[in-house]
């Protein structure tokens, strides 16, 4: 892109390791709030996906931070991205199993409200 924004000069230093970590932390906290506070089982599962995505973002930003260092071992940065890749695989498996459990629960009880899940209470 040949044009520059007047307020945001090309390298204002806004995109750095700590700001990426803060974005990841905010998204993780939003997802944790959704898991704890919401009562709809589907939204709880979606919030879990949010938390996993936030962790992926942190992994990718640390990988990028270590890519430029001379002391890091070979392929250290790629290994960080690989870990995020494995998290995506686990998240896909978790979504499949979790949604199957939701469907089974709904077939048995006609609800997806977590407040109705008290068979094992007491």
């Amino acid at each position: 892109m040949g044009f520059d924004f007047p307020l945001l000069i090309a390298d204002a230093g806004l995109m750095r390791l700590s700001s990426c970590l803060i974005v990841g932390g905010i998204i993780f906290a939003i997802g944790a709030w959704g898991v704890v506070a919401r009562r709809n089982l589907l939204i709880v599962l979606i919030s879990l996906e949010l938390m996993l995505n936030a962790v992926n973002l942190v992994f990718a930003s640390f990988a990028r931070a270590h890519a430029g260092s001379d002391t890091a071992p070979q392929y250290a940065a790629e290994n960080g991205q690989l870990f995020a890749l494995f998290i995506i695989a686990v998240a896909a498996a978790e979504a499949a199993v979790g949604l199957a459990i939701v469907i089974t629960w709904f077939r048995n009880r006609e609800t997806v409200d977590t407040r109705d899940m008290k068979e094992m209470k007491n």
Partner: protein
Amino acid sequence: MKDFAFILSAVVCVLSAAAIVSRKNPVYSVVFMLPFFLGMTTLFVLLDATFLAAIQMIVYGGAILVVFLFVIMLINLKPDELREDFSMKSWFISCVGAGLLAATFALFAYRGTRPNVEDVHFAKPLEAKSRPHQTELGSVENIAYPLFEKQMIPFELASVLIIVATLGAVLLSKKKM
């Protein structure tokens, strides 16, 4: 330019994440997952993780989102089952907990990284001097070598995990056990 793209995608991500957890109808939550995943993909591209960005868009935007939509259409919730009349106390407590979590992460990001890890500017391009053999960080070649040479066993275990999860999902959603 990179800074502008970063700020834009970070704001999109945080706003759509807030929309996801706050909508009453789960269909809107799934619809707001799309801008969330798009923003996340942009962040991965900005962090030189291009292969990860492609996988993110394919797996999350292509598979998981559609599966969630399918399940929401399948169970077809009635409006009176979407009630969220949780008490003020539990709402307040969960807000405080999430705020404390975010504050802890922010504290780590600000102070925890300072003495050990340099607070790297990502807007500068990666200099090739420190990476003579692998100039591109997230390319397919550079991902494939450590994946198939060093991390072979976790890779195979991931395939076993996915097979087991598929079988488990089929078994769980059968009519009769």
